[in-house]
């Protein structure tokens, strides 16, 4: 920790280092794109234009970003408690299931009630799916990384079974449920803009974005402004000290993981209640895994997570447009770029941190020497 002990200025830690990490990931991706026989600079400009070039694109970018805010927050709260929740994918699937059941159960009474219950259902089922691995980690010492991964596989099979069995659209062939009843949905934001007399092109961005942002504020408040959040972070940083101070480590593990699961579960609000209006097999599409990248890129802070989610949203939307323009670049390549961003932003942190710290220390000492 010799070099790391010196503090970097806030802006260098929060902006410069993530930017360098991202640049490195893009550099490697650019080399792959070049090797595939395409122009990486053209690809980058197509990507940016596809993500922000027109109003519908912006709507899609924010729509994907909403998913990533939920899953990124989910990973980060578990991380603050010292755990790796790789089960965001499965928790999101179960969240989607809880949401769907609530919609069908309550929409007969009132669509508004159905939406409220759907939000609760999503959070509850997601939390329940995280509870089991958390309990097993806390009480039986089972490795939470492996159990959450297993729970992803189990969730995926469970959903596959329900969607070709009891929950399948009557008479349907696809692994999907019947359409949600009219009114049981979250309003697209362009309609809300319209109410205020502002026109915005139609797009999938919906009220879930606002819910996600509220969740981010909630996570920030919980972690840094409450006694509970303080204890949670102490458990993550030094479980022995926490236990000595009378905080139950196993209880904290379970609660943190359940909040994490609830956040991941709420991803379905955006995908299902906001856009698809039915439960689809495999609707999570790896968003739960991307949450890991988002959390690390965003330094596990809600503001950083929102920015990183926006970046990944742009990568998704821009990538889809790019795949349309350049046939050799497929969705798979976008997945590879995500992997590289995770590698550089999450695991290769020291690659730039140490040299940058050295440079800053040098500047500091020259300044002091001059003074």
């Amino acid at each position: 920790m010799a070099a790391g002990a010196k503090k970097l200025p806030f802006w260098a830690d929060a902006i410069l280092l993530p930017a360098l990490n991202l640049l490195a990931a893009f550099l490697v991706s650019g080399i792959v794109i070049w090797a595939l026989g395409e122009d990486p600079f053209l690809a980058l400009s197509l990507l940016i234009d596809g993500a922000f070039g027109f109003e519908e694109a912006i709507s899609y970018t924010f729509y994907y970003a909403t998913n990533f805010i939920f899953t990124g927050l989910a990973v980060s709260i578990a991380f603050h408690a010292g755990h790796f929740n790789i089960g965001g994918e499965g928790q999101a699937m179960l969240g989607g299931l809880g949401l769907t059941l609530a919609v069908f159960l309550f929409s007969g009474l009132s669509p508004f009630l159905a939406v409220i219950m759907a939000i609760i259902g999503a959070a509850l089922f997601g939390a329940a799916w995280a509870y089991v691995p958390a309990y097993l980690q806390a009480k039986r010492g089972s490795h939470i990384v492996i159990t959450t991964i297993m729970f992803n596989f189990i969730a995926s099979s469970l959903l596959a079974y329900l969607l070709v069995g009891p929950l399948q659209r009557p008479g349907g062939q696809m692994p999907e449920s019947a359409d949600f009843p009219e009114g049981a949905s979250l309003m697209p934001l362009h309609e809300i803009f319209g109410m205020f007399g502002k026109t915005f092109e139609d797009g999938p961005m919906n009220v879930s974005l606002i819910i996600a942002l509220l969740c981010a504020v909630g996570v920030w408040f919980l972690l840094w402004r409450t006694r509970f959040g303080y204890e949670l972070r102490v458990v993550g940083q030094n479980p022995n000290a926490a236990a000595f101070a009378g905080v139950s480590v196993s209880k904290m593990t379970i609660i943190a993981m359940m909040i994490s699961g609830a956040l991941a579960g709420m991803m379905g609000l955006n995908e299902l209640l906001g856009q698809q209006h039915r439960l689809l097999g495999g609707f999570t599409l790896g968003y739960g895994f991307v949450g890991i990248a988002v959390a690390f890129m965003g330094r596990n802070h809600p503001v950083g997570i929102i920015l990183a989610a926006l970046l990944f949203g742009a990568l998704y939307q821009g990538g889809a447009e790019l795949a349309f323009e350049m046939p050799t670049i497929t969705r798979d390549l976008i997945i590879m770029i995500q992997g590289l961003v995770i590698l550089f932003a999450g695991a290769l942190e020291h690659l730039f941190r140490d040299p940058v710290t050295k440079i800053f220390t040098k500047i500091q000492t020259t300044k002091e020497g001059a003074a």
Partner: protein
Amino acid sequence: MEFFADLVLLTDSTFRIATPLVLTALAGLVCERGGVVDIGLEGKMLASAFAAAASAAVTGSPWAGMAAGIGASILLALLHGYVSISQRGNQIVSGMAINIAVAGLAPTLANFWFQKGGQTPLLGDEARFSTITFPFAESLADVPVIGALYSEILSGHNIITYMTIVIVPLVAWMLYKTRFGLRLRAVGENPEAVDTAGISVTLLRYQAMVIAGVLCGLAGTVLSTGLGAGFIRDMSAGKGYLALAAMIFGKWKPVPTLLACLLFGFVDALQGRLQGVALPLIGEIPVQFTIMLPYVLTVIILAGFVGKIQAPRASGIPYEKDH
């Protein structure tokens, strides 16, 4: 006699299915014994499955495939080593990143080279490690009991399965009977002591990564050129994670790990046999539930049967010389 025939067939597929699991679990074991946690086994297996299938498809030789598979896996192992050992990065994040990057890169390259929607072309028999039939297996097949054991269970596997049977004792011997193994185990428990003795922690850990790379490379190769006939998207299907679970169940020891892998292999073989079969009392189990079986078993085993386990003490912790 039907039960016996079933059992023979189950045992036969258990060996087949367990082969990549055993190799991968041993790879994880060597890494963690040396102090590096490798959750990227999955990605290494997938990368080598792709490299092996692609190379075998182009050259027509499974051995060229094996070389490419092992090569790809070693490169990724060194990357993980660089992140974990030299850069002191987070090892779980690094492993996940490698898994995700490979899951994207392999089908991209497959699509670029072969234009078959992210797969490699179907491999002909000459480009695969096909099954080896032992002498007299055909003529002995009708001899009761012994014939079935010899011709079904012992004979008729691909060469990598037979290699695996040799590799398990080899790894155990290396770990417990050689100087390198002693140092490797020490570096996973107490790297300071190894360092004080004037032995390079870094070098030892990189050596462990290379060994893991070779083992994972074999596992990937057997997936696409032995058990299968080409690379398919996501063909590792969580086997890398199952292997890690088997390693924990086997308490980081080669022979118990082998047994754990055989158990996983057996459950997987069983779920294959259960598909579409009506069981007494329960009736037919939906296929989605039989597919869940190995994963559920993993959770139960990790929760209930492992007991208090002690991972190698320094595994997952980067070694820093200067403190």
